[in-house]
């Protein structure tokens, strides 16, 4: 997502809090945490607890998941009112229909409208609908977002470029336990003639977390 219109946060530009660049990791001096990862992985393989193939496949599966998956679900809900009803009633079952899986967690889907705007956070850790959106963005895991969005959601949303009228009620959802949340953003105006694939391209990651609206058509 382009956030380049925001000029905050330059004080921690490209270094992790521990002061090392995140990437590329292959060419930088080994950290003790990386040594721990390698050692743990090799021990688990040697002991027959995991196989190298399992680890590789899990990393590959992680790389394959992206917000494009969630966008397909949202686009289907936009064009198919019956699917939308099923999605809002039982998110886990409805995404299974499309070949996605909620695993042990249950999916709750919440619809954004002109009257109600839902936004998701995990104040306790970093719970996120990974199976539909991939790994969470860095800001989702940071103290700033997690601390502030539960108290001043409108101010936080405005930092994302989303200013809501007073007539829209804001509902913040703290992902505290076994549910995962997907926001169903409102379908933009001027999209009546668009098919499901074209619509999916309008559905950005942030709109499915609730910190943005779906993109307007070209």
């Amino acid at each position, binding site marked *: 997502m382009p956030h380049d219109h925001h000029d905050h*946060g330059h004080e921690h530009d490209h270094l992790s809090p521990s002061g090392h660049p995140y990437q590329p*990791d292959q060419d930088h001096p080994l950290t003790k945490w990386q040594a721990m990862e*390698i050692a*743990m992985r090799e021990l688990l393989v040697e002991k027959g607890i995991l196989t190298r193939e399992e680890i590789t496949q*899990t*990393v590959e599966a992680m790389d394959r998941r992206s917000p494009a998956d969630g966008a397909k679900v949202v686009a289907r809900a936009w064009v198919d009112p019956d699917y939308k009803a099923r999605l809002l009633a039982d998110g886990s079952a409805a995404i299974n229909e499309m070949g996605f899986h909620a695993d042990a967690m249950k999916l709750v889907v919440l619809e954004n409208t002109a009257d109600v705007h839902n936004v998701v956070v995990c104040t306790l850790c*970093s719970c996120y609908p990974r199976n539909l959106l991939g790994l969470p963005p860095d800001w989702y895991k940071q*103290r700033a977002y997690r*601390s502030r969005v*539960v108290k001043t959601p409108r101010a936080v949303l405005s930092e994302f470029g989303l200013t809501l009228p007073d007539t829209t009620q804001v509902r913040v959802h703290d992902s505290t336990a076994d549910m995962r949340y997907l926001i169903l953003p409102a379908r933009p105006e001027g999209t009546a003639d668009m098919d499901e694939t074209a619509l999916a391209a309008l559905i950005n990651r942030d709109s499915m977390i609730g910190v943005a609206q779906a993109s307007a058509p070209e």
Partner: protein
Amino acid sequence: MGGQPAGDIDFDQHNFALWEKRVDALLVLTSGKGYFTVDGLRRVLEDMGEEAFETMTYYERWVQSVNQNMLEAGAYSLEELSTKMAEVTARGETYGDCAGGGE
């Protein structure tokens, strides 16, 4: 941490490094096999305290927590881990050098 004072949101996004994805994969696989639960992961993360949150990256905290939970589960001993970490570190200078031995 909800409601506590905090600064502006930092919108910079790093690309996940291979070692970070591997930490994530180790959590997914070992918890999936019943060695521990995501609640055990979180318990150790929280027990690390505020300082760890400020001084370590996300996956640095995770690798420490996964390790702690696997030790508690009896998957390997501290002696085995220490021996292996020394062996890994002796392989070279960079992650690329040192991760090669197990491949």
